[in-house]
């Protein structure tokens, strides 16, 4: 039992390391299957036969997709979704109260903080995945920036840098979120040729109902949170 748990951890780490190296899903499936094949033949533990998963993943030198590919496919849409969500949050209270949306430079800088942190993600993605405290620190910074942006928000037009009609921003940001979520849902429903396939059975590594639900919720996370914010704003009107 312990044996299986240790090996499962090793294989999970191997898949993660190969994913971090942008290795194609079919090559990952092939690597995992051939490792399982040898372990079944020798009766060894994965670490004993192949060494540390990270070292083995590096030693394989498998062909990898260029990094800009995932930045274009995943990072930019996520960034745009986050930006739309942040704009929606800034506009929703003013729109519900039928007031002008007041913006100060400090507030703008604080709203931009999470966007900049996410935009720079390719520079430190590996550190975020390998060290949980980096992820916690980033989340804390983003949450703090969000809270502080509310604190420094100007209360009177005199103290504001910009005073704008919130409605176009509210509608625009809401539409952007819905369009991005719809696009992501369509993309995730299509058969993905980067899935991890076991060459011995041609079934995907993990694609159960649970995974599908998680993917669906993730795709619609910003609209769901935006609706919650709208509900809160309406209840405190």
């Amino acid at each position, binding site marked *: 039992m312990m044996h299986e748990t240790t090996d499962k951890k090793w294989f999970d780490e191997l898949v993660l390391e190969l994913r971090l190296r942008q290795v194609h899903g079919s090559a990952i499936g*092939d*690597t995992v299957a051939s490792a399982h*094949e040898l372990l079944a033949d020798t009766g060894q533990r994965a670490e004993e036969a*192949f060494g540390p998963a990270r070292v*083995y993943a590096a030693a394989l030198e498998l062909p990898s997709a260029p990094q800009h590919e995932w930045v274009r496919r995943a990072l930019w849409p996520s960034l745009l979704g986050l930006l739309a969500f942040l704009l929606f949050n800034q506009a929703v209270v003013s729109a519900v109260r039928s007031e002008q949306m007041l913006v100060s430079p400090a507030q703008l800088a604080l709203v931009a903080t999470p966007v900049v942190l996410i935009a720079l993600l390719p520079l430190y993605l590996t550190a975020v995945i390998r060290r949980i405290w980096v992820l916690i620190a980033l989340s804390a910074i983003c949450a703090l920036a969000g809270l502080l942006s509310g604190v420094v928000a100007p209360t009177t037009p005199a103290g504001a840098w910009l005073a704008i009609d919130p409605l176009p921003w509210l509608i625009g940001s809401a539409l952007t979120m819905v369009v991005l979520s719809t696009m992501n849902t369509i993309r995730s429903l299509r058969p993905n040729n980067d899935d991890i396939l076991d060459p*011995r059975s041609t079934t995907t590594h993990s694609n159960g109902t649970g995974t599908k639900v998680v993917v669906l919720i993730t795709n619609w996370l910003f609209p769901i949170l935006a609706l919650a914010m709208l509900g809160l704003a309406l209840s405190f009107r």
Partner: protein
Amino acid sequence: MDVSTSAPETAGGAHWPSDWLRATLGFLALRALSAGPSYGYAIISELERNGFGTVKGGTLYPLLTRYEAAGMVTTEWRAGEGGPGRKYFALTDHGRAELIRLTADWVRFTNLSTHYLDPEVHTKESST
């Protein structure tokens, strides 16, 4: 001065210095495939049977993956008998040509080394 290291990659059988195995494992693996397509465990067993010790999967598979990328080896998954399939490696023409070239070079190198290491040869040469 001891410049060679022990053999951490080999777990059983002969304990050759790891430097020697690192230098030769490539064409030894190609040689193991020269009789026909074979799979990971069979290649390891073949090398062990011939006195090279137990090569680990973590050493063999990266080597075969590089050979596949270089076009010296092709791979194919075949259904197993009553069990999951196996990944078979087979030499390509390029791999076979490379094996012949490396074998000839290795024979020349070992002859040269043996000749140089032979104390009798040195004694004869210095006396003439």
